């Protein structure tokens, strides 16, 4: 009797172990090859941090139909898409909506010669050299990578910005894009 009890215990623990280990294994199989092998910088699809001034793209782009390049004006010339200078905001907001507290905050920064500390949404590690200019020149829409910015009240990361995501677009024959390592890594 006693022995059977031990046996039973053993078997139970074995079953438990099996369950646990199969759980562990499936976790490994499902998640490890995916995102969790990477350090925390990437794959933050859906990241939408709160900004110091709740700039509303849906209002500016969606409703008011301001062109992207009006503010991100260097994107055609440079590999970087610049965050507009405060003076760009002030082009309109010296007149428009001057009574709103956030605009007043902006105005304050402008007048004092300061700036706004935006929280960065899209971030690539420094060993990736993404070139906005090249993609714009090829006729890639902003929305292709950044999603329906015109509908976002708060900007969120639309694509996972993983290497696979880049490469899967680059390797489509119709895109005629290079997939050399040195296209991005140098």
């Amino acid at each position, binding site marked *: 009797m006693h022995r059977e009890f031990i046996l039973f215990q053993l078997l139970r623990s074995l079953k438990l172990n099996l369950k646990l280990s199969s759980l562990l294994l499936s976790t490994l199989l499902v998640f490890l090859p995916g995102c969790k092998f990477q350090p925390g910088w990437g794959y*933050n699809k859906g990241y939408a941090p709160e900004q110091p001034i709740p700039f509303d793209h849906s209002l500016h782009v969606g409703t008011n139909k301001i062109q992207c390049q009006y503010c991100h004006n260097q994107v055609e010339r440079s590999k970087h898409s610049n965050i507009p200078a405060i003076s760009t905001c002030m082009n309109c907001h010296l007149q428009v909506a001057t009574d709103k507290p956030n605009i007043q905050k902006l105005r304050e920064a402008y007048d004092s010669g300061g700036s706004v500390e935006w929280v960065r949404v899209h971030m690539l590690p420094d060993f990736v050299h993404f070139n906005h200019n090249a993609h714009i020149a090829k006729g890639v829409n902003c929305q292709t990578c950044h999603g329906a910015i015109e509908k976002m009240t708060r900007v969120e990361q639309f694509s996972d910005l993983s290497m696979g995501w880049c490469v899967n677009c680059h390797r489509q024959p119709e895109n005629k894009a290079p997939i050399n390592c040195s296209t991005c890594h*140098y």
Partner: protein
Amino acid sequence: MSEIHHDHDLEMKKALRPQIEHDTKYWETLEQLNNDPEFAKKAQTEFLSSPLREGDGEDGFARREFLKLMGASLAMATASCVRRPVQKIVPYNKMPEEVTLGVANYYTSAYFDGSDGLAVLVKTREGRPIKIEANPGHPFSVSGLNIRSQAALLNLYDPERAQGPKHNLFNEKKSNSQLVEIKWEDLDKKVVEQLSKGDVVVLTGALASPATRALVSDFAEGFKAKHVTWEALSNEDVSQGQKASYGEELVPAFRFDKAQMIVSIDADFLGTWISPTAFTNQFAQGRKDIKKMNRLVSFDSNYSLTGGNADIRIKIKPSQQLDVVMGLLHEIIISKGLSSYASNANVKAALAPFAGVAKKLNIEPELFAKVAADLWANKGESLVVAGGLAAMTESTKELQIAVNFLNTVLENDGKTIDSKGGNSALKGSYQAMTSLIKDMNDGKVKTLIIHRLNPSFVLPAEMGFEEAIRKVKMVLYSGDRVDETGSHADYLIPDNHFLESWNDLELANGVYTICQPAIRPMYDTRSFQLSLMTWGFLGKAGPARLRDYESFYDYLRVYWKSDIHPKMAKGTDFEDFWQQALQKGYVGDVSKASNTSRSFKVDAFTAIKPAKATEGFELVLHSTSQMGDGSLANVPWLHELPDPITKVTWDNYVSVSIATAEKLHLKQGSVVELLVGKKKMELPVYVQPGLHDEVLAVSVGYGRTKAGKVGNNVGQNAFALMSVSNEGKLVASGMSATITKLAKSYPLATTSGHFSMEGRQIVAEATLKDYNKNSKSGIKKHEIWSIWSGHEYSGHKWGMAVDLHSCTGCSACVIACQSENNISVIGKKYVLEGRIMHWLRIDRYYTGDPADAQAVFQPVMCQHCDNAPCETVCPVLATVHSDEGLNDMVYNRCVGTRYCANNCPYKVRRFNWFNYAKLIEKPMNMALNPSVGVRVRGVMEKCTFCVQRIQDAKTTARNDKRQLKDGDVKTACQTACPAGGITFGDVNDPNSAVAKIFKTEDRGYALLEEWHAKPAVRYLSKIRNNDKENVGGQNGHGTAKQGEHS
């Protein structure tokens, strides 16, 4: 009360000052902002070319730090967010017009180190200079750069630069040092007070800036000051020789490009003498057309870069320099009876004792006669030069007179020597320094203003500078740190870096170059010029233009308007002229016309007496192209750059010949005691092939004690070995010396393990005679076949050609590469372990008899092999081939197995054994190129053919809506090469320069071709113009022996 009054006065004065119209495109406003205290305060929060933040004021430069803003350095505020590190982006308040994030701006400027000058472009990214580039097309420095002009970038970011004015609270005897900070206002007040007491001396180096020269003379006029010019590495011997020979005290322009036959007696014109960069360019031009190439004969007492590149190098010792020139004259005038002087009895009498010089000097008489005959045969197209530290012997004046006479005999004066075209700035004088010291000792100097000179370091003890300077009431030091001399100064007046100030330079007579600032002064510094102007203003002294402007920029423009514009472009609009000058970086041209020859004072020549023959060792001091006079000793790039000849880093040493080493049982790294007169110095030994057996050569510029963390106590200060002769002349060479072996050793960090090519075809070399017979001479071709056709490259296919015939080994490319590609400096310990990081290295081999070794140089970078052996063995695909023929190295994929490096036949791969990037001290990180990743520990790195430049060029072409064309992509090494030895481009473009070389150049060969890695680099064989045949070709290096079966 008086202060308030003073301030008020200042304000009033400012209001009354004439307004200068400023154009907005360039940088002039910055200087202005900087110099106006109120403006400067505002500028704390608004710097034109970089985004600023409030509260960053205390961190003087961090705000300009691109990396922080663009997220490259990941200065992360991790906060509580587990998901990802939060980064903040801070946009500009107002976007400066000229700044596009991620796109570099170039500003024209120029560099002058007291002797060598060249026009440069300063590459800036987001408002910080990241690289010094060549300004091609400049009439004087046609292309390329030298080592130190590029390294000066790091000097800008030197963490140990003086960051504000300082006052030294001296005791009575000025023997202590107690530095305190001081406000500019207080300093200026004290200074002006003292200046008004008279007896002012301004001690500067060679001033190549015409505006500064004018300003100093305005100042001198205002304060009755004396201007003394001195340089550690002066060209006084040349100008004094010219004075004695022709009556004109000047340094003429030497035209190596016009010379077919060049004889150099210890004048290292390719490395250190006068303008080595421009000379290298000229010299290479004279060799480009191989059939008509020039010939360089070098009589070398140190193994100099010029000697290494000579077609015929003849080793001598310093005391024989005069003998060589007189011997050549004897050959021409007496033995052959040539020239109009052959009938001059006095000349003959003076030459008589020099019969049989060749034998005496142990030179093959036929060879010596041939040199003389060649000189005569190329009459008017030959050039004889002598000079430099190695020629600063007791008879240096005689040597110069003899050389001048030889040039006159050869009718070179006015042809290859242009007395009018030289750089009029080269006036540094030891004589002037000697009399200044005397004046100081006599109490005739009350105020001494020193601008960027370091006499305390350079001058030997017997000149008594250290004692003399203590007798000066007030010493003002306008330098960039409290160095050896600065520590004797009452006030340290930190000078701007040349990249922080406006300036102009006259590099050759009639060629004016403008230096634009590329960054606002990083610290509370003030340019030397502005200091003089401020004192002029406050002291109410000097002409109006000294007092009336609030920045040197204004002075400069006024000067150009009044002095240069009328001369260069009379009748045009000054603004247009100014704009053009800014854009091109220069105005004017070097004189191309031949001058008339000057009449030679034969008396000076006939007075020459033969020197006594000497026995035993003679000391040769020489400067090196990396260290120069030691003023940039705190720049790590310079220390880590292997010496072009010896390949030693981080040290100086005493070079001895192989026979001497054997005789005294010395090995590389044995420590000896060098005894010169009464001076002793312990130095490690370097065994130098091809050195004269009675020569001990030591380089100067090392052994700084107050340069900073990097430069302090690296090597020994060999300047201290200079001595003052009985006639009161300073002698740097030819002193008799002895060495004693000590029971110590001191490892020298060399980067080249082996002298010999071991009979392998590495540097293919042929003589001109061989080449004329067969243009493929010296190259062993291999039959190569493959069982597979290989991949096709349909688009671009990048390739490079390196002309070993042009390469002088000057190493400018190495520094260019280091600067462009963020290559780590690792320090002596690790270099000693063989871990130097340079992507581009210059291999130096010796050929021929070791006692008379000839050097060859070969720049080796990644060869971007089509069948790259490194790629095959990488397990993780971290190095693979791009469809443009590049051997891509993906740092972030690399796990560091190092198998690739093992399998690379060229060993061009470098490994990050430790986290070297962490050694970069702030603000040095600002010199990093943001287009190139900084490598972490444990990854392999190597030359990428400057892929970032390829990508940038593509972006530019795309923005211009055009195809990429030949010349759009220039690698860093290519732009830096003063000899134009590197060609880069698309091999698939049939019209590109590089494709033509690949297809048609007979001298082309691939390194280790038989290994069938199919490199994308072609080397072009070196041709030596030395009358020999079948040497260096099939037999000489045994190239035929190898590879036949492989």
